[in-house]
């Protein structure tokens, strides 16, 4: 049971990293990307290759993975953002399809459909982290670092400029900001951070294959962001926790296995549609409403205000 909880913690940490990094692009910069799983995958493959062939050092794997994620992000952003950011979603879809094919077919590097196996546990400052508890602690620490970094970034002038650009592109340009540079930077940072999730995933599961990095996964991350509340710092974390823990909750109900997948997908679809129509700020927006209601409650005690 503890191993189960510890592995849930790792999955939550990964999801939080993916959702929060996507939110920089989706929520703050207003760019829709359905290729986030690609950068998750690039991080995972980069870490696996480093660990299998060079060293199991976590720091080194992180450095290589983040560089690879940033490079791949640049590869997507530079051509896609030269036109108009509205086309980005289409470009990212193409990127996702191409990347999935590369993961599946580039046998020599990715191991093809079978993937890469036997990835050793990571070492941190020379110590091997083998236990689930160790991995869980490490994952939560890394997620905390990524989320703190993103929070600082959103509050920095880059974050301010991205929000300005998203709210009024013409006014942002008139204030001296280059939209293409800003958006490219946002995509690159976001992709680089997504690859951190991939590093954790590779070391945790000790094998990677293309199935984990498909369009489905990209959509799942997008659902987390929208569900939690795009363009907020708490939203993606809430969304990530919900989407990761929801299947675990479902498993307590005795639903036959073959229905679990479809039920989940239906539930996500419904929740996202309802939220987009009634509460675009997602769970964070709902929480704000509750707080406002509670703030109003004392004044509205029955009997006191009859007018």
């Amino acid at each position: 049971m503890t191993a189960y909880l510890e592995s849930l913690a790792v999955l939550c940490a990964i999801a939080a990293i993916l959702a929060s990094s996507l939110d920089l692009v989706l929520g703050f910069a207003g760019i829709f990307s359905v290729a986030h799983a690609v950068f998750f995958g690039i991080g995972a493959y980069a870490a696996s290759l480093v660990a299998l062939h060079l060293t199991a050092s976590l720091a080194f794997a992180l450095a290589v993975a983040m560089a690879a994620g940033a490079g791949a992000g640049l590869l997507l952003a530079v051509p896609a953002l030269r036109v108009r950011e509205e086309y980005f979603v289409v470009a990212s879809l193409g990127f996702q399809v191409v990347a999935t094919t590369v993961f599946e077919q580039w046998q020599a590097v990715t191991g093809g459909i079978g993937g890469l196996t036997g990835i050793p546990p990571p070492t941190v400052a020379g110590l091997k982290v083998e236990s689930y508890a160790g991995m869980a602690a490490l994952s939560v620490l890394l997620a905390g670092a990524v989320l703190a970094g993103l929070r600082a970034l959103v509050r920095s002038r880059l974050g301010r400029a991205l929000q300005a650009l998203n709210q009024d592109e013409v006014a942002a340009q008139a204030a001296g900001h280059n939209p293409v540079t800003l958006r490219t930077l946002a995509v690159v940072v976001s992709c680089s951070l997504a690859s951190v999730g991939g590093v954790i995933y590779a070391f945790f599961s000790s094998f990677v294959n293309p199935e984990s990095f498909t369009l489905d996964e990209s959509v799942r991350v997008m659902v987390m962001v929208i569900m939690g509340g795009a363009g907020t710092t708490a939203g993606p974390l809430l969304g990530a926790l919900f989407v990761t823990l929801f299947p675990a909750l479902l498993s307590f109900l005795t639903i036959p296995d073959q229905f679990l997948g479809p039920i989940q997908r239906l539930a996500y679809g419904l929740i996202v549609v309802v939220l987009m129509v009634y509460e675009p700020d997602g769970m964070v927006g709902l929480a704000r409403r509750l707080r406002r209601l509670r703030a109003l409650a004392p004044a509205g005690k029955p009997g006191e205000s009859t007018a």
Partner: protein
Amino acid sequence: MKAQLEISSLSKAFGGNAVLDRVDLEVAACAVSAVIGPNGAGKTTLFNAISGFVPPDRGQITLEGVELVGMPPHRIAELGVGRTFQNLRLFPRLTVLENVLVALDRTERRQSRRRRQVQARALLERAGVSASPDTFASDLSFAEQKFVSLARALACGHRILLLDEPGSGLDPPSLERMYALVRSLAAEGRTILLIEHNLDVVRELAERVVFLDRGRALARGTPAQVFASPEAANSYFGGEPEP
């Protein structure tokens, strides 16, 4: 008098409709100049061409001798061209302070974060914004929003300030505040070009005026000269009343 901004033979057509037609304009340094003309005369398009949002079909625009045509808007802003918009275009979900910081983040990027904050507050005070700097821009009244947009333009307009209808939508007290601000900016040597179709504003503020009608600069001189010219008189006093 030295010209800060020189526009020569500037033309722009939208789908065969000439909106700017061989416009010549010299904006004197350290003074307030105005472009007047009826709605649809091409005044805002002229600003859009200067600030890089609308590429002209022909003609030159030089700022202190530097050609602006072909430069992207953000480069022109970095050169010290600050502008406001007729419809303000504040960042609605940023605070008042952040709206100004967005501009200072570029123009004063070598300064410390702390310094920029101080400067943003000073600019807001300068523009007479009394709302709390932490209010969201969209929560302000129109007049307050207008002064925030002036503060934001001040943050990047150290070479020239382009004000698109600074008087429109302001009640008399706010109008007086705006006059005082523009006069004090001029007094400290700022170069200001404003657009108006309200002649009172021009009479109050401008030293030199160009009258634009259907994309053509038809008259120029002091406000009194231009108001007395047959072209302007015809358009303003003989034509249809302004909507």
